[in-house]
């Protein structure tokens, strides 16, 4: 044995002495090339469009500094301040309604022993799979002129109440996810201490639970407000005469060709989004700092009265969310809601209606598949480059900033930016305008940050020395990326794929400015059909989008899940030990 070990087949001298090694670092060169490519992409498809929005808002038609003139023109409009007040009012009301409800829901899931938690959770996340137009349509069928409970609202669903309820449906899962994670962090030792000192459950909640989750509550509040004020799906459908900023920006650009006015309102909407973005970053740091590594995990104990109460709350909120979906789905399947409830598929005969027909649906599928394939590759590889390789600091920081920027930019503003930038006659990329490619590009950018964060979280969990170990073994960086990093992060990669698919299936806000007759999308068809008064087909198309999202999510969960578990035999092998 000794001799075989001491006479290794690879002689030392052959590798390192005879051949003068080059100082050229193949791995650094690869990483740098990929990073510059990503930088180019982010500059072209994110930074320059945003600059174009700024230019449109701040420069006059000759490209000179316009100063405050456009702003004073915007403000001079007597409708402007009432409109701002309406937007802020209805968004704040939404946040005030949604955050407490979502808190109760999250508390029920994380801190009680209520039954069927998986089911409640799945129902509560369903709105993420539907376009934001769906709650609007459902509300019309419930309380509108043809509504089941028409007399309850007396027609006042068109306006404040409609927007409030619709946005509540749309933003609920977003608030829930933040609060679930805030409530998942709990140090059992604090609760033991509180009960040892004789604190009752209300006092414990006030002095332990609430302070520990206050950052989450505040973060959820900001997020819901921002989502509601920048969304125009719901107000477009049920807003009626109650005009809000988001719809106004859309009308200014699409209806009236007043690009500068659209850009100004877009910039206004950027303010709450940017604020939320900054607050969120600050909150996350505080939240993390709060939890010491020695904290013990809190496991709820059986308390019959509390558990029963929270089961009732979970049931009630889930029922309300399901009702909205059920009404939209149900109405799409009957002849004339609510007068003739005979089952029919006539609303699904899209080719004989305005709005784009089945082409819109197939286009949406193409967009979703394209966005998830391109997006997953670009975003995951980008996150890996940023996490695991070092280049010059300027490049790394620029990439990091640009990866976080999309979170702060409402889809509406991004869409406007794409119009201003790519539709400019002097832009050599002008040929992209009106193509499917630009829709894919826009969607990848729109959903970049969430996918990026998912990737970063997964990458941070794997050993930081893999790249160093692989370099010492003289294995090229990219080979280790493909053979080690990607397989290790496969669950996150698939989650990014699913997220991008569902998001581009349901989105309206950015792409509404960019589609052409050939690339009309399903969610846009919903809007157009609703505009044309075809509410039944609009409900049908919404249903189809929802079903597609659910099907893909389930497919990823079960079908691919099976494959992933097989490909990740090492994971379960490790646990058996």
């Amino acid at each position, binding site marked *: 044995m000794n001799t075989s070990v001491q006479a290794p087949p690879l002689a030392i001298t052959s590798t*390192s002495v005879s051949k003068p090694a080059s100082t050229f670092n193949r791995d650094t060169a690869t990483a740098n090339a990929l990073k510059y490519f990503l930088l180019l992409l982010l500059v072209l498809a994110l930074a320059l469009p945003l600059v174009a929005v700024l230019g449109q808002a701040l420069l006059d038609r000759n490209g000179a500094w316009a100063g405050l003139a456009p702003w004073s023109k915007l403000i001079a409009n007597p409708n402007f301040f009432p409109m701002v007040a309406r937007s802020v009012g209805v968004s704040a009301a939404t946040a005030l309604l949604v955050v407490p409800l979502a808190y109760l829901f999250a508390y029920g899931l994380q801190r009680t022993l209520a039954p069927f938690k998986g089911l409640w959770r799945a129902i509560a996340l369903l709105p993420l799979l539907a376009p934001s137009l769906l709650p609007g349509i459902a509300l019309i069928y419930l309380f509108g002129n043809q509504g089941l409970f028409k007399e309850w609202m007396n027609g006042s669903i068109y306006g404040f109440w409609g927007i409030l309820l619709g946005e509540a449906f749309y933003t609920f899962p977003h608030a829930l996810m933040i609060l679930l994670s805030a409530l998942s962090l709990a140090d059992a030792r604090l609760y033991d201490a509180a009960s040892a000192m004789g604190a009752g459950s209300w006092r414990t909640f006030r002095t332990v639970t609430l302070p520990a989750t206050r950052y989450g509550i505040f973060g959820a509040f900001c997020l819901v407000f921002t989502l509601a004020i920048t969304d125009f799906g719901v107000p477009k459908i049920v807003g009626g005469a109650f005009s809000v900023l988001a719809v106004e920006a859309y009308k200014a650009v699409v209806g009236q060709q007043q690009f500068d006015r659209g850009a100004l309102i877009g910039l206004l909407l950027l303010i709450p989004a940017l604020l939320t973005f900054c607050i969120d970053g600050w909150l996350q740091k505080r939240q993390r700092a709060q939890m010491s590594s020695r904290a013990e995990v809190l496991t709820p104990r059986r308390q019959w009265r509390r558990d029963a109460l929270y089961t009732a709350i979970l049931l009630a909120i889930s029922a309300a969310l399901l009702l909205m979906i059920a009404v939209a789905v149900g109405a799409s399947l009957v002849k004339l809601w609510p007068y003739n409830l005979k089952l029919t598929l006539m609303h699904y005969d899209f080719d004989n209606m305005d709005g784009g027909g089945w082409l819109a649906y197939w286009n949406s599928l193409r967009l979703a598949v394209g966005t998830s394939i391109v997006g997953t590759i670009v975003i995951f590889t980008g996150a890996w480059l940023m996490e695991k390789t070092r280049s010059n600091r300027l490049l790394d920081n620029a990439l990091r900033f640009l990866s976080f920027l999309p979170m702060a930019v409402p889809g509406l503003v991004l869409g406007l930016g794409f119009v201003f930038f790519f539709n400019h006659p002097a832009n050599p990329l002008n040929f992209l305008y009106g193509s499917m490619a630009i829709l894919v590009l826009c969607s990848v950018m729109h959903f970049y940050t969430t996918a990026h964060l998912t990737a970063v979280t997964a990458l941070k969990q794997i050993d930081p020395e893999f790249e160093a170990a692989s370099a010492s073994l003289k294995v090229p960086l990219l080979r280790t990326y493909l053979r080690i990093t990607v397989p290790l992060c496969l669950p996150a990669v698939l989650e990014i794929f699913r997220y991008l698919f569902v998001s581009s299936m349901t989105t309206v806000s950015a792409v509404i400015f960019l589609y052409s007759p050939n690339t009309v999308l399903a969610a846009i068809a919903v809007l157009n059909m609703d505009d044309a008064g075809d509410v039944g087909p609009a409900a049908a198309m919404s249903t189809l989008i929802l079903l597609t999202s659910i099907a893909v999510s389930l497919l990823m969960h079960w079908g691919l899940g099976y494959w992933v578990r097989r490909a990740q035999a090492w994971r379960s092998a490790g646990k058996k030990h």
Partner: protein
Amino acid sequence: MLTPLSVTAPASAPTAAIAEALSPTSATFLSIRNISKRFGAFTALDNVSLDVRQGEMVCLLGPSGCGKTTLLRTIAGLAKQDDGAIHAHGMDISHLPPQSRDYGILFQSYALFPNLTVAQNVAYGLNARRLSRTQMQQRVAEMLDMIGLSGSEKKYPGQLSGGQQQRVALARALAPSPSLLLLDEPLSALDAQVREHLQLEIRRLQKQFNITTLMVTHDQEEAMVMSDRIAIMQHGRIEQFDTPDRIYRHPATPFVADFIGQANWLPFQRLSPHQVSVGALTLTVDEAPRQHMGNNDHGRLFCRPEAVDVSPAADAANRFSARVVDQIYLGDRYRMMLELDELPGQRLMADVANDVRARLPDVAAQRMWIALPQQSLHLFA
């Protein structure tokens, strides 16, 4: 390299001497010259130089933040020095990328690829273009045999214990036959028994392969057990680079004296070249004034607790009466906290073996004679 023309005995000696002088690789394998590295305002490495001989095992030892890991990563090419040069094999590798430097490395986290089997991990660095499938399998089997894990080829790292995983990592690092082995706190994540076992195992393989090895550790005992020489680092500088024995018995600086083992420190004034005063006491010392003390005629006197003689002959030098203030049982010995009668307020530690303590006459009376042997007293500024 030099073909001897004559085969007579007298001629061969100078030839060998010339060969050694001409070829830096025969003695020094790794030569680090004036390496500096700064992170912003923080100086991680301050003009560090170090020569490691072929086949030698050297430990970089120091508290956290002393620069030892940075130095290792600089040698690996994972961090880039601001100044200075690194030579290996007599070749300048200062600016080579890690792939071209020819070393194997072990990390505290093992950094085994969890989705590859043990055999795939070990084979990861074997060049598929230069080795046939059978050669690769043979090499993997050889390496696993060497670390005593034959039969675990198809297991995943998650199925192995921490110690086994680090052995696989060692096999993976050595499989491509690198000329240098770098160990970055490889045993810190393991529990004490496994750690002791692996210390000896790594040392055995290191000697067997005769591979030049550099290890980073913050565990002084580990450094003592494993190294030929230890480089003690602090504030980005090497305080002392010497054999374990000399580092322990002749620390070059107060920092080294304090960092390795336990120490008594007493303030002194120099009276004459071989006499100092500590308070009211007069002590005889071996050491002449050292250069680094400069013109200082006062400073701190250093003595190891186990060097204190607790049963001195009546005519022993530096013999004093003491009171026992406290005794701490340490298993294999006692640590006695003493106060010299002529030095009130100043504590002195003395480590005493159990059987020696049992024979002490006055231990019950809490009084005893001690001596501070002059050869074990060191003076520092």
